[in-house]
């Protein structure tokens, strides 16, 4: 008798119309998508470990971290770590430097790349390829090597820059120990390294423009300057705006390689070369204040998210198709 009961209930359950429970429906979907899901699983798990778990570590900004106590064992200290933002001049300095340099790189890079792309577009023939390849060369080397190359110019004893200014009768400088020159040196190096890349992006944008526009303009007797001003530039505008805004979105993320290897990590030039990223790195590897670094790192992550989201919002407003999400 005991055996028949479950059998009876089973029959009963089967004869009832299947309940459209959310869970069982989802289970069915899961089974149907099982294989594709499995394919994506390694990547998803990997990102979980490498990107999502460290997000928990952001709480370090509110803790007094000690290696022996770990992330969770360390004491909570509230907003203590953030105090240095208002006290030490370090904080003001690295945030100011990060923002000002990034703005300079974005403006300078955009204007120069746009100009060069327009000039390249005026030419035809084999020379274009040579120009492109030459401009692209610095893109292929690491910032470590850029550091070597700038060192050949800036070295105090034999650097070529001192030789050059010597031609005009100027005294040699100790570049690595000074502050003001870096305001010009760093953007120049950034331009040298990145110009080939961004020029090609804009040049590709220009070559993508329908040639009919130019044909029509030529028939109407437009000059080349007019075509550049009235056709090429307006049609490039969306691309320029989007890249510009995306650059602004990343304004809190500094270029570590540029600011670490080119000024050669020398203390005396920190007032004009140190950015958030180099500061955090030093705090971590040298004897530094890891708690202040955690606080400023927290700020960088959070403010970074806000700026990227605002940038995307602006792109959406300008041109919906080009928004990131």
């Amino acid at each position, binding site marked *: 008798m005991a055996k028949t009961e479950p059998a009876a209930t089973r029959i009963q359950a089967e004869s009832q119309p299947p309940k459209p429970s959310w869970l069982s429906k989802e289970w069915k979907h899961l089974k149907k998508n099982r294989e594709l899901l499995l394919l994506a699983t390694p990547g998803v798990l990997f990102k979980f470990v*490498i*990107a999502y778990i460290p997000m928990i*570590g952001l709480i370090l900004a509110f803790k007094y971290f000690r290696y022996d106590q770990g992330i969770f064992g360390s004491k909570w200290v509230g907003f203590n770590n953030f105090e240095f933002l208002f006290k030490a001049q370090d904080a003001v300095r690295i945030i100011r430097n990060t923002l000002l340099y990034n703005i300079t790189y974005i403006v300078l890079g955009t204007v120069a790349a746009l100009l060069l792309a327009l000039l390249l577009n005026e030419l035809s023939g084999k020379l274009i390829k040579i120009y492109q390849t030459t401009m692209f060369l610095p893109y292929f080397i*690491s910032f470590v090597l850029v550091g070597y190359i700038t060192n*050949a110019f800036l070295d105090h004893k034999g650097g070529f820059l001192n030789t050059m200014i010597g031609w005009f009768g100027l005294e040699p400088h100790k570049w690595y120990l000074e502050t003001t020159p870096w305001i010009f040196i760093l953007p120049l190096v950034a331009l040298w390294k990145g110009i080939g890349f961004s020029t090609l992006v804009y040049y590709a944008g220009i070559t993508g423009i329908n040639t009919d526009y130019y044909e029509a303009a030529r028939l109407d007797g437009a000059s080349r300057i007019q075509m550049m001003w009235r056709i090429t530039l307006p049609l490039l505008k969306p691309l320029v705006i989007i890249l510009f805004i*995306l650059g602004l979105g990343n304004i809190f993320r500094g270029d570590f390689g540029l600011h670490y*290897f080119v000024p050669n990590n020398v203390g005396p030039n920190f007032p004009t070369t140190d950015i958030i990223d180099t500061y955090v790195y030093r705090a971590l590897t040298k004897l530094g204040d*890891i708690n202040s670094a955690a606080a400023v790192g927290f700020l960088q992550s959070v403010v970074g998210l806000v700026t990227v989201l605002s940038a995307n919002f602006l792109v959406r407003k300008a041109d919906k198709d080009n928004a990131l999400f």
Partner: protein
Amino acid sequence: MPNTKGFNLMNGFINVFLIALCLAIALPFVLVVIISLTSENSLVQDGYQFLPREWSVEAYRIVFQKPDPLLKGYMVTILITVIGTFISLLLTAMTAYPISRMDFRYNRPITFYIFFTMLFNGGLIPFYIMMTQYLHLKNSLLALIIPTLLSPFNIMIMKGFLDKISKEIIESAKVDGAKEFRIFFTIILPLATPALATLGLFIAFGYWNEWYYALLFIDNDKYIPLQLLLVRILSQIEFLANSPLAQVADKLAYANFPTLSVRMAMAILAGGPMLIIFPFFQKYFVKGITVGSLKG
């Protein structure tokens, strides 16, 4: 045709300007090569010159006399480039394919999950603590491979390519009873070869020039990739005193050791070969860049 003359004149100006610019861009490279070929005497006396008083291959002779650090650097770099590129390509394609399938139910949440990491992250300090204190990856080859293994940017490029593959091929394979795994490995991957080649070049380029994670995670002499070797030589000449190179220095008496030209010779031997090889693939870089920047 009064205009043609004006055109040619303008072209002339543009060409002159661009040639001058390209010279300015290329000359720093030339200077480094020349410094490496200058005798130490000339360097000490006249500084770095484009036309040195005395040429010499002494620097290269010294490096090749004891090539161990350089060869080891090449070995480590080649190793992480090959292994890293292979795993990275596979992982990128495996992640990009499901989210390129519009009929995949979890398409949107996974896409968001991946791209959110581009917008927000824990920053350097939590990542560093996790890698060293919890995963114990300090001083390992994995520390050089893992951090850049799966970039949302690459997934985006890959997805862009995969979107273009006709869905009918997949449908008909499904009708024939093929499982998704088989479809991916025997149909999608072969069709995506051009994309894989472009992306593979990108990834390999990244691994080859990788120095950031080496700087963070490697502090013994076992796994020094080329770029880190260069960092060490650049940042401290004292490096010569406590590295394998020091033995050479000892023989030559440290005072006479041509550090300046040797430094530049090392830079050229470490960075030069790729500077010659990469430009040949410039076309693919441009392709990847334009896809990436226009789409995101």
